[in-house]
């Protein structure tokens, strides 16, 4: 194992998206992440996209992506045998992560107080929708619900329409990334200070004070009494905005002081020879914007998004082509940089997935194994914790553990 966390073992009681993404980052950087799955498995095994479109808990693209490099142990914590196995695994763990509803961990008999009494140096990170202590602590959430309440959704979209969210589970993935920093902090306090702490990570909080605009709109309102509203429409200024082109769209920011390089960007067209374009104030003149855009849209219509982005790169304009997913996969730059990783999986075969989130020179990201089948490592992990083959068979027979034969 080459990852920096190759001396770390995590007991992972998280499921769905935010928690598993946090523990995936740990697993991908070398930690031995033991994913404890309830009977039937992580509910995200029942979320698509499925290979071939047919639901199958071993063919979920969601589960596959968010659970690479982990080992799966199927335990029923509602049974005595399952709880006993949990405590045996806990003896060998450096960190525990969970995202049950607040109170469930205690109800299962594996709560923080008991953990702390057994091994005071082991931290627990609890990830939940609204936190362990809140008037909303028992409230349910979803990516949409949490982003609506806690993120800056209100001002996203068009004024005359409803607020609009990000893709899929993007808000949960952001929170999962932040939760990984909480886990890393907890791990360090546990290892270096011998002080296991219980960190209460609330997904809502991670957006209410997170970096995607919410803090800024709250400060702006306090300062000025002015709310931040959705925009009345696509405000397209000179070289600023999302523009259609020959094969799609580009997002471009070439206005303001950058406009001085507009001629170079456009290839020194004849119509720009007029000196009036040298006056920075012209960018605010509605007639000039109309005149400019009449030429510019023609220019756009004759070029692909890649060509426009190349031109923008040459003159250092902020720019991004709006790629479709197939275009991202085909892009030669990301291929050449080694962004994609080929995973091999018993149920899914060969699957190409986005690989390393960042490159570390001494301790690189590594795909050691694809996402586990449910209970794939129950016997292996229990044996490591000192269980004999007979004991494991007995646990399986009572349903306390799920062992893949």
């Amino acid at each position, binding site marked *: 194992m080459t990852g920096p966390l190759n001396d770390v073992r995590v007991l992972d009681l998280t499921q769905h998206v935010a928690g598993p993404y946090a523990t995936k980052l740990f697993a991908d950087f070398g930690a031995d992440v033991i994913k404890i799955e309830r009977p039937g498995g992580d509910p995200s095994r029942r979320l698509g996209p499925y290979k071939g479109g047919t639901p199958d808990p071993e063919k979920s693209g969601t589960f596959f*992506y968010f659970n690479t490099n982990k080992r799966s142990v199927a335990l029923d914590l509602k049974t005595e045998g399952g709880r006993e196995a949990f405590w045996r695994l806990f003896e060998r763990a450096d960190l525990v992560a969970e995202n049950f509803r607040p109170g469930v961990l205690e109800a299962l008999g594996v709560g923080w107080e008991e953990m702390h009494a057994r091994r005071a140096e082991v931290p627990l990170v609890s990830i939940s929708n609204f936190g362990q202590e809140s008037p909303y602590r028992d409230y349910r959430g979803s990516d949409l*619900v949490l982003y609506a309440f806690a993120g800056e959704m209100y*001002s996203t979209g068009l004024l005359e329409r409803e607020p609009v969210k990000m893709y899929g589970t993007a808000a949960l993935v952001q929170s999962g990334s932040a939760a*990984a920093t909480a886990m890393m902090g907890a791990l360090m306090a546990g290892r270096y200070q011998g002080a296991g702490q219980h960190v209460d990570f609330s997904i809502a909080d991670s957006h*209410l004070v997170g970096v995607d605009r919410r803090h800024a709109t709250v400060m702006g309102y306090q300062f000025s009494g*002015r*709310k931040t509203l959705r925009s009345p429409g696509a405000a397209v200024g000179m070289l600023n905005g999302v523009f259609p082109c020959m094969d799609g769209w580009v997002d471009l920011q070439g206005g303001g002081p950058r406009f001085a390089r507009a001629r170079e960007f456009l290839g020194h067209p004849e119509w720009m020879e007029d000196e009036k374009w040298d006056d920075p104030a012209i960018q605010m003149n509605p007639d000039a914007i109309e005149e400019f855009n009449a030429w510019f849209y023609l220019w756009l219509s004759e070029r692909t998004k890649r060509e426009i982005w190349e031109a923008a790169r040459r003159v250092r304009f902020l720019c991004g082509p709006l790629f479709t997913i197939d275009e991202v996969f085909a892009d030669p730059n990301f291929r050449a940089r080694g962004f994609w990783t080929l995973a091999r999986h018993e149920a899914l075969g060969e699957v190409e997935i986005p690989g390393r989130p*960042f490159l570390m020179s001494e301790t690189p990201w590594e795909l050691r194994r694809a996402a586990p089948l449910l209970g794939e490592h129950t016997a292996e992990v229990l044996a490591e914790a000192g269980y004999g083959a007979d004991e494991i068979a007995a646990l399986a027979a009572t349903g306390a553990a799920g062992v893949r034969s």
Partner: protein
Amino acid sequence: MTALPLDGVRILDLSGVWAGTFSTVLLADLGAEVLKQENQFVWQPNTRAVPGPRIPAAMTRSGPGWITGFPNGDPGERPWNYHPMFVSLYRNKRSFTLDIRRPEGKALLGRLAAISDAVLENSAVGTMEKLGITWEWLREQREDIIFLRAPGYGITGDYREARTMGAHLEGTMGHQLLRGYAGGGPNSNSGIFAADYIAAAQIALALMLAIWHRNNTGKGQFIEMAQAENAAAMFAQAYMNYSLNGEVEHAIGNRSIYAADGEAPCGIYPCRSEGEGGAETGDDRWIAITVTGDRDWEALRELMGDPDWARAPELATAAGRAARQDLLDERLAAWTVGFADMDLFARLQAAGVPAAPVMDSSRVLDNPHVQARGLYVPRELAREDIGVYHYPRPLYEFPDSQGGIRLPPVAFGQDNEYVYRELLGVGDEEYQRLTDEGHIATAFSDTL
């Protein structure tokens, strides 16, 4: 009480914009000493204020609060110390100024690197090279140093010199065509800072991983994050759908990508406005609802009074509901619009249905959850007399450690005395000379 996890770790912060600047907030919140290097002669765009260091008062009297809202409508002489877009990115940090473009400035930076655990930057490729701040040079200052670079597309490849903000690289990675209204066209999107969030968190994570490794082995290392590649996890299901099935996903508005797995209806529905106006005055009200399966659907039906339309047998199954989302959205909207959003929020959650109002910025501080969690804390700024405002606290706390806002948002150059005198051992005379020569400052140069 025990020390915070990163107590004793020193980070030399050459980063900017939201991604870099927020990554070091996370590290500072965890106890690291973050030394933010600034320069009175260099304006880092989108880092301290927009559009620049001098903001005419007229520009701050209208427009969205988050961009132009200043206390008393007055940007003051040093708007960079409390611009609403940026002020929350400076808690728990220290700020010093140094002109690292000049040889003496670079030498002093080297001396700071020698006593720092990690250095980070996220400028466009070329900027650090021009300054000679390279991995090799930093290792000459300190052999086990950690250096992280996070340009938009990484330090190699065809796009390495591309200028980009988060929104542009989200375009490149597919997000701009995956989010927004169904069939609405990407130019109806708003610019968002999604990529900055994930990059900030993972820059902080990467640096902690490297510190862990260094503590184990004594070795520093070089970390490269291409922010575009880092953003990919936010769109993982779309990538998996293409990888597994060759299917290219498009924007579906507020519906769930898991509609076929039971998550329908799912959307934003209108509620009764409590104010005079509508969206133009921020008085529009909306509620988010996600039905995650049969149980939620039955609870919702009951809450609605079990209307005839909802009893239709084809709506009894997840597949049936997924196939009839237009109808469900229309019917639900007709029901929700009769309620105040907070009232409906309480009713839906009491029935066990995931739901919440879409909160605009004016309602955050008074919210019972925000208050119970102490998420915004009253503070005064050390160097600016603008009064008391509520600033965001860390995302999470360590209960046995002194966390929170240990230092309120730091002013430009506020810790020059600490950095020059205490860390670098500069005496009175030299301090004066460095001030005269422009390294030490508490305001941006008039020449900008």
